[in-house]
Every structure is written in C-alpha cells, then in structure tokens.
C-alpha cells in the first residue's frame, strides 16, 4: 500500500484519531486530542434524529438521514463533544448518502445530541463536527460541507461548528493539515504528526 493509499484507508484514518487520543501509543503520532482533554465516548454511536426535527426537515424538503453513526464520538471537558467522521474523499453538494449523513451530523447542536444520546437536559454544552480525510489540493474540500451548512441555516435550522482535518503525505511522513479548522477547534491545530516510515 502506498502512503497515498494509506491515508485514504478508513482503518488508518480511525486509528490516526485513536492514536491522537492515546498518551503513549508506541507510535510517533502526538496525542494532540488527549492533551486537549478528549476521550472516546462511543464508537459508531447510533444517533437518531428527534422525530420532530426529522419531520421539520421533510416539510422543508431537506434530505437528511434519520439515523446516523459517526465513526467516533469524543467527550471533552465541560460537557463538550466532538463528532468525528472519516472519509476517503470529501463530497460536494447533492442528496447522496454522504450528504444526507452530513446534514444529520451538522444538525447535532447540543440539545439535539443530548436527545440522541438520551442524556438529561443540559448534559451537552458544546458540540463540534470534525471530518478527517486525505488531502486533495485540486479543490476546496470543505466547500461541499459549507454548502450543506448554508442550506440548513437558510431553512432556519441550527447547525454545529464544523471543520476538516486533512492527512497529507510529505515524503515519508504523514502530516495533519488543520487549516480547515474553525477557531473553536484551533487548539488541536498546527500539530505535526509522524507515522512510521512506509514503503521505500
């Protein structure tokens, strides 16, 4: 497997996140998410959109998945949750499965996520959505997500912060490009990580 293939592999992507959550993983990936105070809350948690919200989306003619299972759900300090979804490639605008899933994830504001997780009121204070994908310099990889977000906001639905981490191959290293992160997620930005040498 080439490094370019590796960074698109779903297992590698999820493991990259898990290594970033582990204080001493035996790899050269820095535990940036661990230092930011995150732990794994659930893997592939099933999030069912509240029925009322799902109804409102149908009435507005917006296609969204009624059940969505993000790859990872992380919990941080002070009732903060980070939803992580890994993708081989990002998507544009449209109504395919990826877009329907993305809309459901964008809608996970604190009150919605708390409902989806059957938590008591006030148990979720902040939410963020983070996509992880392989870097592609040929187009704006965040554009599709931004369009979906705009569509939801225009229809007066509240959406959560969202951002993009990109895995970029540089020589024999894999670097995380955090330029697609919003200010709220900047504390995990700007960290270089190294994977074991691959190939060659």
């Amino acid at each position, binding site marked *: 497997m080439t490094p370019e293939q590796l960074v698109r592999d779903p297992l590698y992507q999820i493991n990259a996140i898990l290594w970033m959550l582990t204080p001493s993983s035996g790899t050269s990936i820095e535990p940036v998410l661990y230092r930011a105070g995150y732990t794994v809350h659930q893997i592939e948690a099933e999030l069912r959109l509240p029925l009322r*919200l799902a109804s*409102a989306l149908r009435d507005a003619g917006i296609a969204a998945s009624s059940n969505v299972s993000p790859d990872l759900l992380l919990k941080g300090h002070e009732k903060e949750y980070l939803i992580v979804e890994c993708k081989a490639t990002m998507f544009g605008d449209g109504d395919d499965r990826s877009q329907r899933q993305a809309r459901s994830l964008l809608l996970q504001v604190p009150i919605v996520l708390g409902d989806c997780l059957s938590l008591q009121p006030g148990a979720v204070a902040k939410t963020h959505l983070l996509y992880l994908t392989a870097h592609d310099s040929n187009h704006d990889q965040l554009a599709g997500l931004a369009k979906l977000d705009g569509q939801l906001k225009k229809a007066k639905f509240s959406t959560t912060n969202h951002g993009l981490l990109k895995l970029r191959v540089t020589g024999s290293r894999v670097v995380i490009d955090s330029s697609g992160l919003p200010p709220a997620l900047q504390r995990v930005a700007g960290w270089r990580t190294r994977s074991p040498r691959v190939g060659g």
Partner: protein
Amino acid sequence: MELANVKTREAAFEQLEGYSFERKAELDQNRSRTPLVKSYLLEDPECADDQEFLQAIRQAGHEIYRIDDTLFKIKDRATKRYVGLVERLIPRHPVIYSHEEARFMDGWVHRLVNATTHLDRLWISGHAFERLLEWNFENKQPRRFGRLVFQHTSVFETDSPLDQSIESDGEGEAVLSDADEYVPERRTTRFTMVDRLEVLQAKLPKMRTLYAPLHVIAQLRFPANGSTGGHDFYFNGKATNRSSSFADHRAHVKFVLETYRNTIAKTEADAWQHEETAFNLTGAAVRLRFSEPLLQDTFEKFITATFQRRQNRFGLWGDPIVLGHSKVHVYALDRHLWQQLFIEITPQQMIVLIPRGTCGNSIHRLVTNVQQYLDPAVNVWIGDRPYSEYVNVQHGVTP
C-alpha cells in the same frame, strides 16, 4: 433485567436497550415468554418540584431513588422489587419505564395515579390519535405495517337496565368475554386492523362513513425506525415497545409527549375563563356536538350514571341542575384532580367552561371518554376552532 445495581443513566438505558433487543428477537421467533418494555406516560399537573414529586411516589407507598437530575428508580414497597425507572422526560410529564408483566404493572400504575392528585394519566382521544395517524402517513414509509385498535362501548344506550358496568371506574380496556358472564345488550366495538400504512390511508375514510365507532382509535402503532416492529400507544398513555431499540421507543414517547404538551398548553391558553373587567369574561367555550342527538333515554342515563353515582367512567362529580326535561347544568369537579368544570348538557351537545387553573387534561379526558362511551363521532370545538387543530403536531425548528 436487574435495576438494583444500576447507578447511572448510561447503565440504566444500556440495560433497557439490551433487554429490548432480546425481546424483539424472541417476538420475531414467535416465542415471546418474557415481558416487553412498557412506558407509562403521566402528567404532573402542578409541575411539582422534585421534592413534591418524590413525596407523591412515597405517599403511594413506594420507594424512589435518584439516579440523576431527571431519572429515578422505583421500588415497590410491598414486594421489595425494583419495578422500573421513572424519567421526568419533559417538564410536567414523568414517564415510568418497566419490564414487569403488563397485568402487574398496569394495575400498579393505576393504583399509583389514583393514590395522588399530583399525577394523572395522559388521555389520548380518538381525535388526537387521528392526528398522530396522519403524522405516520406523512412521515413513515407507506409500506410499513401500522396497527390500529378501535374501541367504543355505548354504555348509556342500552335496552338493559342501568347496570353495574356503567358505574365501573374502569378505563375501558377490558376484553369482552363471551364465556359464562352476563353480556349487556348494547353497541360494543373492539376491532383491530393491521395493514400497510398506504392501505390504511386509502381505506379508512370510506370505512368510517359506514360505521361511526371507527372514529375511536384506542391504540395506535408507530412503526419503528431502523427495524421491524413498532411502538404501540394506548389511549390512557401506556406505550409498549415492540421494536428492538429502547432509544427509538424513548424517542417516540418523547414525540407523543411533546405533542400532548403543546395541545394542553394551547387548550389552556384559549379555553381558560378569566375576567378582563367586571363585565367582560374571556376564554373560549369547549363545545362537544353529538353527531346525532342523544335519545332521551340515553341522555337521562348518562346524567344519572355520571353525576349521581359515586363511581363513574367520566370521573366527574356534581349536582345537576335540571332546567328542563332535556337540559342540565352542572358545576362539576374532576374527581381525580378536584378541579372545576362548568358544563351544560343537552341531547344535542355539551358546552364546557374551564376556569383558569383547571388543567387542560380534564378536557382531553372528557373528549376521550365521550368518544369511548357516548358518541364515537362527536365533533369538538374550542371556541370556533376544531379540536383537531389543537392536536396539530408542531414541528418547529431546532432551538
């Protein structure tokens, strides 16, 4: 399922989720031997604070222990057994989740509610179920199976003498037996339909033109999301989980509760009578217009059985003021909550005024009981707006 060692919400709901999954697997193999998860949706009319709520449960003779801000577990004091969890799911509406057998738990909840004025059942009338059924048609896959149970007993229109069954305080759930028991001669319908939603949507309107009791839905199934099976809601606020997921069941419970809450709030806002000035009384009257005028005999039996018998199906008390052979005024009390209703009754209609402070639930109980026992096709208005508009599911957007 063992609740004794449950200390957190996560642990409690994980148990319920796993239990629900196993029960659905048994149902699918047609070998259901253990009880399903049931929810009992209640109303706390005074929106009591936590201490009052806990006290109400204890006064009924049970022990209640806090798990978190809104979740508790209940131990039956007689059997020393944990019978379920109670969650204050939305303000004013606690829900009991239990895995106990229905024949034990139904009676347990009935006795709990009767033991305190701080708790009441939900009363989901045929009109309200109609709106929820329409929601199913709009939001569930048309090929999914729905299940409806229609139930109506004309207890006051009978050729038999005014009999003991009229006095019953029962909630109309009894299955009629034709063994050796006395079966009064009166119109009685208990009819189940299970079919695809698209078929129900197409056929039901025509069937209703032929037979009025088909207006009185007493049970409605919401098809589950993501699995076969569904969630059966009863007119008295009970819901049975026949799906593989407790989380999905809870989501449907919350949806019904939010709809009910909206309905009560709107009912109270429009129907509460209050003085704006010394000469100006505002508040809309609630009008229940019978689809056909009641027979004089039926009218008289209804008045006698409801207001001159200690135990009656409508749960009302009052001394009727007879204004003619077919008009009666009653300054009535809801016997459970001891709240006032002012009612004028003729063979054509009932007009109800509710003073400010009377819980809107009293109206929904009245409409439910009128449909179940007096007129299945009764038309209801609050002011000049149809009652069905009050049950309209408000979608809203994410706050």
